């Protein structure tokens, strides 16, 4: 049901961890399915120079978190803010229909982290 790329990210997720003194921090939980994500970003010169996260959730949630953080790394704040869950799903090469909602977690956590950065 999951493609190779999804399984690869699920098996060895990238950018996992926490961060001391992040420039932006976002925490989201999906009331729908209980998935939870914490996202930490470092910003230099309006660009995301480091990104870390922790995710509790299914395979789709974990793979989405991994690829979304890969995608956001090196992007400007504006570019990163424009990322949507469909961009994430596309980059993963697709997710099963009923698992699409699980990728929203990564989009929301990134947006929250950016919001926090901007508020500082």
């Amino acid at each position: 049901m999951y493609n190779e790329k999804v399984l690869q990210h699920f098996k060895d997720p990238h950018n996992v961890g926490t961060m001391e003194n992040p420039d932006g921090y976002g925490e989201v939980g999906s009331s729908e399915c209980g998935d939870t994500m914490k996202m930490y970003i470092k910003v230099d010169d309006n660009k995301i120079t480091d990104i870390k996260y922790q995710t509790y959730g299914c395979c789709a949630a974990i793979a989405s978190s991994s690829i979304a953080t890969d995608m956001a790394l090196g992007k400007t704040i504006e570019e990163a803010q424009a990322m949507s869950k469909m961009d994430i799903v596309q980059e993963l090469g697709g997710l099963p229909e009923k698992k699409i909602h699980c990728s929203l977690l990564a989009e929301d956590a990134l947006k929250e982290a950016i919001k926090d950065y901007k508020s500082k």
Partner: protein
Amino acid sequence: MGIYLDHSATTYVDKKVLAKMTQCYSETFGNTSSQHSYGRDAEKGVGAARAQVADAIGASPGEIYFTSGGTESDNWAIKGVAKFARKGHIITTGIEHRAVLDTCKYLEAKGFSITYLPVDAFGAVRADDVEKALQDDTILISIMFANNEVGTINPMAQIGQIAKKHGVLFHTDAVQAVGHVPIDVSAIGIDLLSLSAHKFYGPKGVGALYIKNGTNIEKIIHGGSHEKGMRAGTLNSPGIVGLGAAISLATEVMDNEFVKEAALAKRLKDALLQLPKAKYNGHPDDRLPGNVNISFDGIEAEALMLHLDLEGIAVSTGSACSSGSTNPSYVLKEMGCTIEQARAAVRFTIGRCNTTKDIDTAAKKTKSIVEKLRALSPLFADKGEKNV
């Protein structure tokens, strides 16, 4: 080769069973309804299987009706009794397989009243609750022998006595129990019992319903006069022969298998409970020998299951996160588990082919994956708390 630890989902067909079936597909392939020698040969095989099934559960051959499996047997038992009675009250539990639950829901919509009994923290029904739930118009008690998720075995003898005392029919979905634990329908006082071959090294798509002589039940499948006019359709004779061979073999090896599987299950349980914050689900003793169900705090069962799958180890989860909502196992919820515990539950079911080495490998891999997933999880903080 991978390690298969999902024997409650289904089993492989035993080689000896398969040999008997193959012969029935290519040589004794006649239609049991035919008058010629081909038909008689096929009928001989089916007759022998009927006796084998009857022997295994303490019934007589005339009380065994072949079906397409556990789901049909459950449907027949419950709808068949309801149709005969035309109205009334049915007692069941909240932890039944969907084949029973959905059938009861269907009848509820048709005007029958249903009591869904709760279970205790181990997943067992209390016999007292059954007696208290009885009404003047109760037509049936349908309570599973052993649960498919946590393996807990219900107090069957006590429930059987209550049913007998009050003159109410007693059906049990024994799909998970038959072939694994001893069952004697007359000693327990069971009127209707569902079983399915693929849970004890027989083929899929074939099962049986035991109907005690004299039970008031209607048929649900109409057509030819097969099975004494009670279940129409050309008999799946190779499947039935396989069912017979499988149940005989299972009875023969039951005592040894029980001891072996229980020992392996204990080994797996002990190893996995070394992990902090792991909760063992189900009854410690009154359970199917090969079942180990554990919730690992802070992880999502599907994630653990898929990681194990990538390592060649097959297990199952009772919950799935799908289309906008997680449906955590209703069985674990009925047992009082939190949603988080239910989402974190993984079921290992040990079978005939498993070795100590399999168990040790599975335990080792599971432990390292749980640790990895917990490192990834924002929900898990090991406070060094004891297991519950």
